[in-house]
C-alpha cells in the first residue's frame, strides 16, 4: 500500500537524483550476467586449457613445475570464486533495486482517492 508520504518521497528522490532508474537496474543485471559468464569460462575452458602435471619427467624440476602449475591453477580458481561471489552479491543488489524501482513506480502512480 502506498500513501501520500510515499508519493512525496518518490518525487523527492526523483528531484534529488537518488531514485532507482530502470537503466541502473539493467546495468547491474548486465554486469551480474557478465560475471557469471566469466566464472563459467574460468572454471571451464581456461581451467581445461591448463597443462596437467608432467607425467614423463621425474626430477626435482618436474616436481617444482608441478607445484607452480598447481599454484597457477589455484589462482585461476580463486578468480572464478571471486567472480561467483561478486555475481551473487550483484544478484541481491539487482533484486533489491528492482523492488525499490517497483515501489517507486507504485508511489509515483499514487492518486488521492476522491
Amino acid at each position, binding site marked *: 500500500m502506498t500513501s501520500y508520504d510515499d508519493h512525496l518521497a518518490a518525487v523527492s528522490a526523483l528531484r534529488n*537524483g537518488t531514485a*532507482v532508474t530502470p537503466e541502473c537496474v539493467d546495468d*547491474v543485471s548486465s*554486469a551480474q550476467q557478465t560475471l557469471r559468464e566469466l566464472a563459467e569460462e574460468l572454471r571451464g575452458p*581456461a581451467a581445461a586449457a591448463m597443462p596437467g602435471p608432467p*607425467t614423463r619427467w621425474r626430477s626435482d624440476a618436474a616436481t617444482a*613445475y608441478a607445484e*607452480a602449475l598447481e599454484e*597457477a591453477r589455484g589462482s585461476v580458481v580463486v578468480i572464478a570464486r571471486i567472480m561467483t561471489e*561478486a555475481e551473487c552479491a550483484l544478484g541481491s543488489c539487482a533484486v533489491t533495486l528492482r523492488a525499490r524501482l517497483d515501489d517507486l513506480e507504485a508511489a509515483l502512480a499514487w492518486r488521492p482517492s476522491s
Partner: protein
Amino acid sequence: MAAVVVSDDLVISGGGSTRVAVDELFADVGRLDTAEGLVRYASDRFGVARSKLDAVEHRATASGPLPWPGDDLRFGWFAFEVALGRLRLLRFRLVMAAELYGATERTVGALWDLGGAVGASVLGFLAPRAMAGAAVSLLPVALPAAAALGLARMAGSDPGPAVDAAVRRWLGEHRGVLNDPAFVRFVRTFADHADDFVLGALNVPAAPLVGSATEAPESASLILGVTGLLSAIGIGTGRTLVDGPVRVERVTSGPARDPAVAPSPSNAAVPPPRGFEDLADRVPRGDAQITVERHHVDGENRWLVYIAGTADFGLVAGSETNDMTSNVHGIADDSPLDALRLAGSTSAGAERGVRLALAEAGALPGDPIVAVGHSGGGVIAASLAADPGLNVVGGLNLGGPVASAQIPETCSFISVEHADDLVPATGGSGHPSCVVVVSRRVNEHGSDGDAVLPAHQFVEYGQTTALLDESDAPQLVAFREQLQEFTAGTVGEQTRWRAERVPDEEP
C-alpha cells in the same frame, strides 16, 4: 630374450628456433599460451564490467544500502593480475628451460665440432703410418687370405657372398656400438670433417682451419667428382657412384593392386591421410618405390608423394635407383659447389625417378606437393622441398640424412631422426634451418633383434610417427592441421611407380 625399452620422449628442435625440448614441454608452452589468452580475455571483460559498475555504484547505493561487492570487484582485478603473472612466469620458465637445453646442445655440438676437426686431422696424419705398420704385422694373415680369395676366383666361385656375410657378421657383433647415440654423434661429426682427415693424411699444415670450409655435402660432391673422373678415364667398374638415365613404370601388381583380385587400370581411391602415422604407412615397401596421391581441392590438383628408402647398399650403380649412388648425390646436391662438378651425373637417379613419376601421374609445375620419404627417400623429399622450381609446401623425412638440405621457410618440413640411428648422422650437422627435427631414442638399452641398425627400421619410425600424432607440441599440431587443409578431407587417387636406371643410350 631381454626386454627392449622403448622411450616415448620426443625431443624437438629447429624450426627456426634455438629452443630444444621434449615435446611435452613445447605442448605445455602452447597450453599455457592458450590459458593465458583465455584469462586475459576474461580480465579484459571484467575490466569493462567493473568500469560500468563503478559508474553505476553511486546511483545504485544512493537509493539505500545494498550488499555491493566493492571488495570483490577490487580484489578481482588483483586476482586476475596474480593469475596472469603466474601463467606468464611459468611459460617463461619453460621457454628458458628449452633455450637452456638448446644452448647446452649447441655447446656440446661446438665441442664435438672442434674435437672432430682436430681429431680428424690428427687421425688423418697418423692413419697412413698406422696402416703401414698394421699392414706389415697383418701380412701373415693377409697373405693367406688373399691367396685363398685368388684361388676361389680361379676356381670359378664368387667369394663376394662370403665376404658380405663376414661383414654382416662383424656389423651384427658390433651392433651395440653402431647404435650408441655417442657413436651416432661421432659419425655426424666425422661426416663434417672427412675432409680434415684427408688433409691430415696429406700432411697439409693447419688442416682443421682449411677443412672447416667444407662439410658433408662438399665431401659427397668431391667423392662423386673423383668417381666420375675415374669412370671417365676408364678406371674402376665405370658405374661406381656414377648415376645414369632413369625411366619409370606404373606398378599395378602387389597385394593391394593384384589384377587377379581387383582390376588394375583405374587408380586406387584412398582416404586422406589423417596424420604422421598415415603418411609413414603409405611409404611403399614392395615392388614400387614411389607412391603418388592426387587430391583435387578447390579446382587444383594437390599431390602427396611417398618415397621408399634405400634398397641397394652397393656402391656400383645398377638398375635399382634407390641405392647408395642416389644417396651420395642427394647429400652432394645440398652444396652449391656441386653444380660446378664437371664429372659424374648432375643429380640422383632416384630423385629424377620421383620427378618423372609425378609428371607421369599428371602433376604440373606449380602444383602443391607434400613429399614423404624414409631413409634415402627422405633425402629425396628434402631435395624436392629445396627446389625453388617446385611448389613443395610440406615434407616429412623418416631417418634420412637431410641436415644440409636448403629447405625454404615456406615449406613445413618435419625430420624424424632417431637418436640411436646412424643413418641421419651421415649427412653431418648441417646448418640452422626451418626444419623441425623430432628425435627419439628407440632402444634405451640396446636391441637384441637381428637388425644391424634397429633404430633405422621402418617399423620403428612408424611407431615414432604414432607418437607424433599423439603429441600436442605446437609444431606438430600445425603440421597435422596443414595436412588436413592440404587434402581438405578429399578422397585421393593413388598410383604406384617403379623407377630404374637404363643404359646411357636408352633414356
